[in-house]
């Protein structure tokens, strides 16, 4: 305690001194030191304050409310060495400055918006955050946002369900503990809480932010295990048409006994966008079509997407309207076939590319639509607001031949967020959020869910080398008009800057997740087992703590190491239970308590004047159900990701490697002969050649043709070859 008192005194005294001096404005431009080209999105921060601005496409920035006197500016942007500048700010005056940044692959941080609900630097975040830039999305020839997120350290897909640091496990996407945001607007499905990754056009993604750890203090339910924020591209300044064509084929399976098709199985897609501006108004429109034979029986898919973004901007107001629609038809191959379930099983215990004969005609139709409107207003240099309305519909139907299952879920959302730079050392964000969800489904019934929340967060630049963040969110949830849950989710964090190239972060927060309609009310039959509703299901809670350090060791090597711990209460998992009559059934229940702890280490390095850039990450996970001492299902103990890119003139060669150790435990099928559990071990190879703005890419995914699963009886994609053409005109 005696150490804290002088700390608080300093915190209270220093800002008040600064505030007494009066303020001025810093306006400037950020340029590339080599090419003198503007550096868009560079972050310019006034040291010792929480003041931050971001360069626009011309590299220009304006910082208002800067305390008068000699001020040190620091500049950061991914791909550049950190920059600095000293300015003399006069009270009521404007000082102009031009700053050059040296290009460098290994630098400190990137811009993120999801951590504190406003643009900030990842290095200034009290929680771990990863950013996938547009170039990475393109390099991997990603079909959906999920393809790009799969390479983020500590992120792992279990089936279609995203796990960040082992948070989610697997329940066929139901009850995701990761919240998907599109430009800050929640986008999880209203019925099951699942993430529909195809709802967004990848061609218009600017960056993807992955926040690791509980985000409930700002985002409420579903953000228990992390947040993925997809930032879409703004309409271009000049008319721009982008065409992306992609085609390829699957290789033979690694063993001839598994061959099931007597023809080459291929896939093709095309995406076209056009964007332009007319004065203050700008827009882009996208259309896309996908065909895929699939690599296994009944794995074919057809997808059509349409989307648009419109923006009307003035000096004070920005009005953004986003809309997207995606329609899919695909085979519903749930499980591979075991001996006796399909013809031509070659007397093998299982056939991973075939599915049971009885399920071969099962098909799913899935239509998704969403729209949001965001109005941002800068009321003054220190006060801004953000008002949004959103709507999302998920409509799907699966035909199992003898049974038709389906659901229609509508989610209406709204939020008012206010940001106030109360002083150079204090930034406040507060707001209120409401949502209303209706679900009509033959396996859940008809239900509605209403949510209301308020939040407040303060960012305090108490000392030049210390920023504190603290806040809380209060959520209330009603199910079918009945009061269901109310939760307070506080969070506190700090960032220490003991050295220019060192950032130490620490955070502790509470997360919560209300069960989804699917978890509360599902009543159906799966694989011969009856799934029964559980309307006494309780919300789950967690306490998340994290300590981490990011250190730029040399001009060619940076490391980031974090330790994290989740304490989980009333964790919701599907489980088998016996009814009072003795019948074995499945239902979602609460696991009294469980814990997840781990370490994550990431190294980023570059060689040969940034021609070779490499990243290696390792994550160790230790999970435990307190009552049984067992590991949580579907969690690997070790995860490794490695990525390398070598650029030589117009040619770019890259590789991505992912490894996850075999799970200690799965939930449903445990026979080692028909349902073996193996590590995940995937190496993807890529090459690209540029002709000005045009790029041709060739990729070999799963180049080792390694056969593995992430959930029982579901083989992940085998080796495939893809040729992609990206044209801009």
């Amino acid at each position, binding site marked *: 305690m005696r150490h804290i008192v002088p700390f608080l005194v300093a915190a209270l005294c220093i800002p008040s001194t600064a505030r007494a001096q009066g303020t001025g404005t810093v306006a400037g431009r950020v340029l590339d030191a080599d090419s003198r080209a503007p550096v868009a999105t560079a972050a310019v921060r006034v040291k010792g304050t929480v003041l931050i601005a971001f360069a626009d496409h011309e590299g220009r920035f304006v910082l208002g409310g800067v305390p008068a006197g000699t001020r040190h500016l620091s500049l950061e942007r991914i791909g550049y060495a950190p920059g600095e500048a000293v300015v003399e700010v006069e009270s009521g005056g404007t000082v102009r400055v031009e700053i050059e940044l040296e290009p460098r692959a290994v630098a400190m941080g990137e811009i993120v918006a999801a951590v504190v609900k406003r643009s900030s630097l990842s290095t200034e975040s009290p929680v771990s955050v990863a950013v996938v830039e547009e170039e990475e999305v393109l390099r991997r020839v990603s079909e959906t946002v999920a393809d790009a997120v799969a390479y983020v350290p500590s992120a792992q897909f279990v089936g279609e369900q995203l796990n960040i640091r082992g948070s989610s496990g697997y329940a066929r996407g139901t009850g995701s503990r990761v919240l998907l945001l599109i430009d800050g607007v929640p986008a999880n499905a209203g019925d099951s809480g699942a993430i529909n990754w195809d709802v967004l056009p990848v061609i218009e993604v600017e960056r993807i932010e992955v926040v690791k750890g509980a985000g409930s203090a700002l985002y409420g339910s579903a953000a228990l295990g992390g947040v993925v924020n997809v930032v879409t591209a703004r309409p271009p300044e000049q008319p721009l048409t982008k065409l992306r064509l992609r085609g390829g084929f699957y290789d033979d399976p*690694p*063993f001839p*006994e*598994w061959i099931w098709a007597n023809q080459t199985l291929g896939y093709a897609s095309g995406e076209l966008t056009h964007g332009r501006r007319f004065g203050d108004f700008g827009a882009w429109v996208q259309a896309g079509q996908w065909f895929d034979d699939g690599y296994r029986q009944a794995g074919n898919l057809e997808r059509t997407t349409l989307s648009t973004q419109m923006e009307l901007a003035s000096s004070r107001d920005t009005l953004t309207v986003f809309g997207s629609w995606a329609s899919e038809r695909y085979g519903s191959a749930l499980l591979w076939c*075991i*001996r*006796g*379930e399909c013809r031509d*099983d*070659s*007397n*093998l*215990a*299982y056939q*991973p590319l075939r599915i049971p004969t009885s399920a071969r005609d099962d098909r799913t139709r899935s239509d998704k639509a969403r729209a949001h409107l965001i109005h941002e207003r800068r009321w003054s240099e220190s006060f801004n607001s953000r008002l949004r309305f959103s709507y999302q519909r998920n409509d799907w139907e699966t035909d199992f031949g003898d049974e038709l299952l389906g659901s229609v879920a509508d989610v209406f959302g709204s939020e008012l967020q206010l940001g106030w730079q109360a002083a150079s050392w204090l930034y406040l964000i507060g707001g209120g959020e409401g949502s209303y969800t209706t679900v009509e489904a033959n396996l859940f019934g008809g239900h509605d869910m209403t949510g209301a929340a308020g939040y407040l967060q303060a960012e305090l630049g108490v000392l030049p080398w210390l920023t504190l963040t603290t806040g809380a969110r209060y959520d209330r949830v009603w199910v079918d008009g009945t009061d269901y849950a109310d939760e307070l989710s506080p969070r506190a964090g700090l960032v220490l800057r003991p050295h220019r190239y060192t950032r130490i972060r620490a955070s502790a927060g509470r997360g919560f997740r209300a069960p989804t309609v699917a978890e509360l009310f599902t009543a159906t039959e799966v694989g*011969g087992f009856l799934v029964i509703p559980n309307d006494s299901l309780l919300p789950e809670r967690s306490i998340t703590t994290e300590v981490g350090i990011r250190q730029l060791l040399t001009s060619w090597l940076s490391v980031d190491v974090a330790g994290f711990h989740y304490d989980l209460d009333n964790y919701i998992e599907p489980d088998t239970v016996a*009814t009072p*009559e*003795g*019948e*074995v059934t499945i239902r979602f229940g609460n696991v009294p308590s469980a814990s997840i702890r781990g370490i994550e280490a990431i190294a980023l390095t570059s*060689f040969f004047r940034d021609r070779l850039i*490499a990243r*290696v990450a390792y994550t160790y996970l230790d999970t435990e159900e307190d009552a049984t001492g067992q590991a949580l299902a579907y969690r690997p103990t070790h995860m*490794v990701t*490695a990525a390398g890119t070598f650029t030589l003139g117009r040619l770019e060669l890259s590789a991505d*490697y992912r*490894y996850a150790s075999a799970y200690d435990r799965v939930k449903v099928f445990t*026979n080692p*002969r*028909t349902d*073996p559990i*193996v*590590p995940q*071990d995937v*190496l993807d190879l890529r090459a690209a050649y540029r002709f000005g703005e045009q790029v041709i890419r060739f990729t070999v995914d799963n180049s*080792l043709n*390694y*056969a*593995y*699963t992430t959930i029982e009886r579901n*083989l992940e994609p085998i080796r495939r070859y893809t040729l992609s053409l990206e044209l801009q005109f």
Partner: protein
Amino acid sequence: MDCSGGVFHLRFPSTFLSSKKGHVRKHLFRAAALVGLVGLACSDGLEPVPFQGISGTVSFVGEVPDSTDWVRLVAYRDLPQQPLDLLGFAAFSDTLPLGVQNPEFILGLDAARYAWLPIVWKRQDAPLSPEALRVIGWYTGGSGPFDPPQPIEVETNAETGDLTVTGDFGQLLTAEEALEAIR
């Protein structure tokens, strides 16, 4: 992937030994990283696994009762001595199709000797409990559904096939009656 087969070959540049100290460190660093990745890339993935268990045909006799929920083949390693032992089964098959006179069955089993392979019938609209179950026959090596049970041997990575088991819907034995019959 079989790493012992020399799928990966690390080739160091010819300048490796003669280069200056700093470059050697860099090369070593890269080589170590490569070796680490290659080591990880040696996981054993999925591979074809021969079926191990039993297969054959069930021969149904008599009218399928309207109250039928399902019928399955069940495997026991030892002959049950008392009703409670009935819960100690090794495995059971998928539901056998009832619209077919001679449906095929298949059942994956551990390599072992199995003493009793009964066909179990379950009553509709009743919870899964011994009271709702009846035995309608077992593997006897012949055609009689209730002759003395014949054991079968399942060998490693092998399928014991062409078994014929008769199930008689006209004789629904309770657990006690079935135990009495196999003694």
